[in-house]
């Protein structure tokens, strides 16, 4: 073929010759005004995803015998970011020589975040939560990750009606979800089943009753006590049937493992699709081992090398933190991938059902230290914490 566009071929060639001079001229003719220092879309990304935040504890309130409400304000910004109700933050502090971080669901609403207020409800159950409940004081400072997680309503996926089932401290994300609905940011219709052993174990009752005036349906379920105004027993299928059409709701579950097991067993006969039941992730703690062995863990962080002791029953992340070495983490449940680290050598095991790694991570030998326990001396390469 012979390509030609203009009458004479050489004119096409001449045009080609001008490509470079044209571009040279255009580049030299650009505006001399300074290049932008910021861009709107990037500014919004920074507001929604500020990364780690410096926060101050501003209020402490006992909720029930075993649960404490902690209120925070952000120090390194005007306000907390807007988030999706149901999400969590990870709080990091120093207890003695150790660094400790734990994920907690947010109890306050996304709108309250914009007023620089973020509330957590912490169950006095472990090392850090015990410390927070007993020793933390207003004015104490902590590091907090940005709100994260996929345990929230999805408008295009979930049913218009949702049934939320809370056990114990699992009430916190649902308080946020109920508030967010009342504030007009979510358009689901929410029925909340809140199970506790006794009435005095019900946290946030005044708040929930007030939200019931604004559209929330709340059903309190006491297992160890019979009282008027409360259902008695467990959140069984029969109880659920009284209030919702099980096949026409999306379930959201947050609570202890025993509660998940019970509710899932109750729902099994209905043959609901996987998408109909969403469960919040739970913290991956120590393994119940008698006489756990102790190994050496060598961790490379950029151009530094740390060697610490790591117990057989604790995750690699916990071992690092126990020695005061900060490592990135958020969910501590194996799923978010934020602690993504390179395995170099040594045997390990991953907590059952918590291997949230990508397929190529497994192929190329990467691990999530938040759910990985040592089975011998190990060497890993960890990214620095923020």
């Amino acid at each position: 073929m012979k390509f030609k566009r203009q009458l004479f071929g050489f004119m096409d060639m001449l045009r080609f010759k001008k490509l470079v001079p044209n571009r040279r001229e255009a580049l030299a003719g650009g505006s001399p005004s300074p290049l932008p220092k910021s861009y709107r879309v990037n500014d919004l990304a920074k507001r929604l995803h500020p990364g780690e935040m410096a926060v101050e504890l501003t209020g402490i309130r006992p909720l029930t015998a075993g649960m404490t409400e902690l209120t925070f304000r952000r120090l390194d910004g005007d306000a907390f970011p807007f988030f999706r109700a149901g999400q969590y933050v990870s709080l990091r502090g120093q207890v003695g020589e150790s660094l400790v971080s734990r994920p907690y669901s947010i109890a306050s609403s996304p709108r309250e975040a914009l007023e620089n207020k973020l509330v957590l409800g912490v169950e006095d159950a472990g090392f850090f939560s015990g410390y927070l409940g007993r020793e933390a004081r207003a004015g104490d400072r902590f590091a907090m990750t940005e709100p994260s997680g996929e345990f929230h309503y999805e408008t295009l996926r979930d049913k218009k009606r949702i049934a939320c089932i809370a056990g114990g401290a699992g009430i916190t994300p649902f308080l946020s979800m109920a508030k967010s609905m009342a504030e007009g940011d979510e358009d689901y219709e929410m029925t909340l089943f809140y199970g506790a052993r006794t009435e005095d174990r019900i946290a946030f009752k005044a708040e929930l009753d007030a939200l019931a005036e604004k559209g929330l349906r709340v059903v309190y379920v006491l297992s160890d006590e019979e009282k008027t105004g409360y259902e008695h027993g467990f959140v069984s299928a029969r109880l659920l049937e009284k209030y919702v059409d099980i096949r026409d709701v999306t379930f959201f579950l947050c609570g202890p493992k025993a509660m998940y097991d019970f509710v899932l067993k109750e729902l099994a006969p209905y043959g609901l699709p996987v998408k109909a039941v969403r469960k919040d992730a739970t913290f991956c703690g120590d393994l119940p081992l008698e006489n756990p062995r102790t190994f050496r863990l060598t961790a490379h962080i950029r151009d530094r090398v740390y060697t610490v002791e790591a117990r057989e029953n604790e995750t690699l992340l916990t071992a690092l933190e126990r020695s005061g070495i900060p490592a990135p983490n958020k969910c501590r449940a194996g799923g978010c991938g934020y602690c993504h680290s390179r395995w170099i050598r040594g045997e390990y095991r991953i907590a059952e059902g918590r291997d949230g790694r990508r397929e190529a991570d497994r192929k190329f030998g990467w691990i999530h230290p938040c759910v990985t326990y040592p089975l011998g001396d190990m060497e890993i390469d960890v990214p620095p914490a923020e």
Partner: protein
Amino acid sequence: MEQHTAKAYDVVVIGAGNGGLTAAIRVLQGGYSCLLLEKHNLPGGFATSFKRGRFEFEASLHELNDFGSPEEPGDIRTLFRDLGVEDKIDWIRIPEAYHLITTDKTYDCEMPFGVDAFINKMEQYVPGSRKSMTDFFDLCNEVRDAQTYSNSVNGNTDSAYMKAHFPNFIKAGSYSVNEVLESLRMPQAARDILNAYWCYLGVDCDRMSFLHYGSMVIRYITRDAWMPRLRSHEISMAMDQRIRELGGDIWYHSEAEKILVDGNGAITGVRLADGTVIPTRHVIANCSPHLVFGKLLEEKAVTEQMVRATNARTFAGRGFSLFLGLNKSAEELGIKSHNYFIYDTADSVKQYDLMRKVETNHVQATVCLNNAYPGCSPEGTCMMYFTTMFMSDDWGNVGETDYFKAKDRVADDMITVFERETGCQIREAIEEIAVASPTTYARYCGHPQGVIYGYETAEWDSLMPRMMMMAEDARLFPGLRFAGGWAMRSSGYSSAYVSGDLSGRQTVGDLKREAK
């Protein structure tokens, strides 16, 4: 971590995207030390994956063009072979070229790979198109040969040689896609169908250089497209591993904050946000010149020429993607194609204009990965991803409290359009969903305004003059070269790898010259 000075490296690469990873391997293969810095905790930039429930989603790759089979490798497979990563990755072949649908009901066409098959199918859809289509592919072949020659001499082409061997390349070289196809007397309908790939380059066919488009189409059609089995994350992890095998270092969670210079304006190092300084005299930036000259480079080294040359350029498309994990198989849902292009109109100029506004943009390039790789999700499920671009900063008008709803509105429209145009009902089957907006791209990759395609390769800034000015552009700031979607080869996976290859090898050349 307290402030300290790290050991010195011959080269520091900023950004572990496709360009940065490739460049780092090239520097190491050249025998020089290299540190790769990445602000995120993963390599790859857009070349990554993420998990939701029982699905692992591909973040961005639709198909890797110019790859070819092991026996007849394309340029990119050859590059991967040279880099030493080809065998670290399991590859799967993409079954068909594309399925074009326009919502004005003008077109619903499925196009195959292979020049003869493509021409025959076109003749079926548009009788009388054979001659012009044959001419088109002849011309494209010459374009590819000319580019191969140009690459072999590192862009320093001999004018007489070019005229003697590639006259059609030169004669067509200054024209747009539409101008050339018109000169080939291609029937309008054939042009419309042929131009379907335009959204992969993000510039309408009145302003897109024919050389750019032609060289891409020929690479897709003649050397089928492939992709890695474990999503593009597999490529990124393979490159990470290769860099370490070659003795290179990679620091994740390590955002470069400043490129440091001495009194003469020569690079002395890179400083991280926590104050750590890495001494070096060579930087390869896998990020935008807007970011480098506007923020990263110490101000005393920023010249008016740099500012003008950067301001002169136009941002390309801002990305938006929807990812769906469906609880039925592609077969049950009736999704037959791997790769759909759904436009309002086949007129790319009109379509480009509609894409300026979030409200009027209904374009989608949609992939059902199971139709290329059935095992990518559990039995009885399938995965889809839908991508579009906004050709202005309209998304910047979205406020913080409307953000989640704004994402849902666009995603909702994508589902509605797909269901309406293909007749496949997918909404009820949604088990997992994720949405990435320009804000998401800005968050993870730091690109201004969430741009995913670098600078527009339109008119004066099209691919050919960029390539011809490669050496001249690099003189803007000695010691600094660019790789990735913002560099000379513009955006897209294959282009980003090639730019990393070029900048990596050229930096090796710089170091060798210095040593003399």
